[in-house]
């Protein structure tokens, strides 16, 4: 079987073979790293497509060749010795990071040497993130059967159960297995990917919300009567954040390779809780320059549509910065996970009346003020602590000192 330079990403035309992990004549098992490729986007380890023996190397380390070039020959198990003319060309499945989300599909890819996988086996492998090599097949010629995967999963759960169960009791009886819904699974995958991609740093500021509280006290009832929903702190915070972003645009950005892509518009994501199913972050497009009232209506519209499962694909794309709001539950501080590929996310938590020291020309005094914490997680690849801190200070300053009385006009 020919080994060819894999296509590592849609736009990649060629790759440099950096390392051969096997020498000619060496035995290879399916899934062993066979060679490494460097492209302008990624460095990738490429696994062997089938078990066998590496019979020939045609492209040496350091050479750059176009995608599809034959770089070596694998004598796959069961394949006749010296390859006849009409042998199949099998593209090596690439383990490229940008294909990571497609990796379960690899499990279904026909493996020239292994017995075929049935439809349900392919489905189960993909659902459980397993590779064919993870499971021992009990069928004809080692074919993996549905029961083999079920047994593998059961054994896996049993092992996990042993770690938690006391007195060696059967693990199944003391727990309920709740399968992930699609959105729960997407949320989970996204969170893991985000933590793996971005070095998160958390910074928080304490903010005095008394000016906004005063506006809500004065105009909240009218607003609710007119608009049909409550006026919360969130649109004010969104407004302040958008203005601060315009002064500190690097928080409104994405990392692309060795560059920071700084967006001119703000696509303000609003994280909305969907209960146990997970969460979504629909986006207010072109949020910069919008009034508080406008933002309030947009937030209400998106969150109610999110809860009614009525968001469109457009509603959830184009986000450049995200607000996560746990305030209604009275949390003190939340360390949010960045909504990739963004570089920062701001959490707004509970706002409570507290005694605070206020300085004035007449001397210090203690007054009662509504105080809350704004916490930002940022991607330390993109910006540093000082930049983030200056941004947070500006948000705090706007909320504390701006004249919000005309905000709803």
């Amino acid at each position, binding site marked *: 079987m020919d080994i060819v330079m894999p296509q590592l990403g849609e736009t990649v035309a060629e790759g440099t073979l950096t390392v051969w992990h096997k020498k000619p004549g060496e035995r290879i098992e399916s899934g062993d790293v066979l060679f490494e490729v460097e492209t302008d986007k990624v460095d990738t380890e490429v696994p062997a497509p089938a078990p066998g023996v590496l019979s020939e190397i045609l492209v040496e380390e350091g050479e750059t060749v176009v995608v599809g070039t034959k770089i070596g020959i694998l004598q796959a198990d069961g394949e006749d010795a010296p390859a006849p003319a009409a042998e199949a060309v099998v593209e090596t499945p690439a383990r490229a990071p940008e294909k990571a989300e497609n990796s379960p599909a690899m499990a279904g890819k026909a493996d020239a040497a292994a017995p075929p996988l049935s439809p349900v086996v392919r489905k189960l492998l993909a659902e459980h993130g397993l590779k064919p090599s993870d499971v021992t097949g009990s*069928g004809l010629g080692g074919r993996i059967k549905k029961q083999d995967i079920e047994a593998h999963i059961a054994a896996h759960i049993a092992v996990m159960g042993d770690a938690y169960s006391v007195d060696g009791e059967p693990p199944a009886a003391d727990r309920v297995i709740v399968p992930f819904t699609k959105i729960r699974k997407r949320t989970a995958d996204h969170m893991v990917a985000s933590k793996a991609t971005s070095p998160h740093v958390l910074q928080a500021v304490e903010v005095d919300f008394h000016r906004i509280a005063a506006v809500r006290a004065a105009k909240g009832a009218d607003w609710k009567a007119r608009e049909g929903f409550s006026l919360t702190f969130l649109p004010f915070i969104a407004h302040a954040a958008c203005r601060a972003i315009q002064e500190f645009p690097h928080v409104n950005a994405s990392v692309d390779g060795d560059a920071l892509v700084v967006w001119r518009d703000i696509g303000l994501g609003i994280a909305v809780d969907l209960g146990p199913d997970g969460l979504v972050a629909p986006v207010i497009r072109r949020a910069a320059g919008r009034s508080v009232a406008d933002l309030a209506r947009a937030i209400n519209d998106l969150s109610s549509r999110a809860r009614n499962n009525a968001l469109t694909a457009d509603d959830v794309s184009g986000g450049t910065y995200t607000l996560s709001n746990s305030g209604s539950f009275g949390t003190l501080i939340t360390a949010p996970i960045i909504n990739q590929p963004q570089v920062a996310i701001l959490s707004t938590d509970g706002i409570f009346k507290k005694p605070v020291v206020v300085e004035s020309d007449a001397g210090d005094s203690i007054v009662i003020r509504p105080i809350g914490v704004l916490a930002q997680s940022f991607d330390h690849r993109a910006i540093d602590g000082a930049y983030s801190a200056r941004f947070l200070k500006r948000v705090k300053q706007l909320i504390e000192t701006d004249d919000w009385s005309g905000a709803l006009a």
Partner: protein
Amino acid sequence: MAELTYRDAVAAGIAQEMRRDDRVVFLGEDVAAAGGVFKATVGLLDEFGPVRVRDTPISEQAILGAAMGAAMTGLRPIAEIMFSDFLAVCWDLVANEIAKSRYMTNGQLECPLVIRTANGGGSRFGAQHSQSVENWAMAVPGIKVVAPSTAADVKGLLAAAVRDPDPVLFFEHKSLYATKGEVPDDDHVDELGKAKVLRRGDDVTIVALAAMVPRSVAAAEILASEHGISATVIDVRSLVPLDTRTILTEVVKTGRLVTVEENPRLCGWGAEIASIVADECFYDLDGPVVRITTPHIPLPSADHLEDLAMPSVTRIVETVRTRMD
């Protein structure tokens, strides 16, 4: 509940419906005075008299022509075609008239007619008296096709067929007439278009019809006790309408489908189910769909050849066992 033979359940079902509804009449060759060549209609003439229970000339066209006219003009006839092979003699009436009358008259004519017939092999009757022709019937739009495997289902499904407003072809199986089972005494009506799950297993779903049902159940028991293979067995009972929901649900659970069909292989009903399963639950299959059928041959009359041709318990066990890996 009373224990009845499959054959007695036929008479019990017809009698139940004739008592309930004066419009139900019954006609066929030797069905009245002789009580049927398979003795499945004994006693009906005595109870209901020669107007409602009639012997006819040896003419399948006359039987179905009369029954069709009666159905179109307000009666609820049950017509017997002695051997299902003879449906070929009157197939124009079935396929072109009875099946299409509601459609072609835009519903002005109804044809609430039940055609009962003795179907299937195993009785050494030769190639012209042993065929399983349910797949002929299944191929004609406009008729319902029912084939019970137990005495209780004979009574319940026959009653449902009589009460149905459209024509139903009701296949009784010759080799099941002597089998016995518990049958509800009183008014017993089943539902057309519902399959029955007879046993549940984890490894394979066996779908069978009529005489192949008891053979499949027996095979499933051997597979479980001797080979450690646990099988679900479904009695299809009704080919049209077909209970795809039950079949698909059970196939998804085991990931495997085996059909056991007495009809000759080409275009047997199992091919239709295999096609539906491939279409609707391909990604839940863990192996090829396997069809166990009579080969595509005229059924031999010699004992050992007929036994060899029809799917046997042994053949079902061996086929399932060797196709599980």
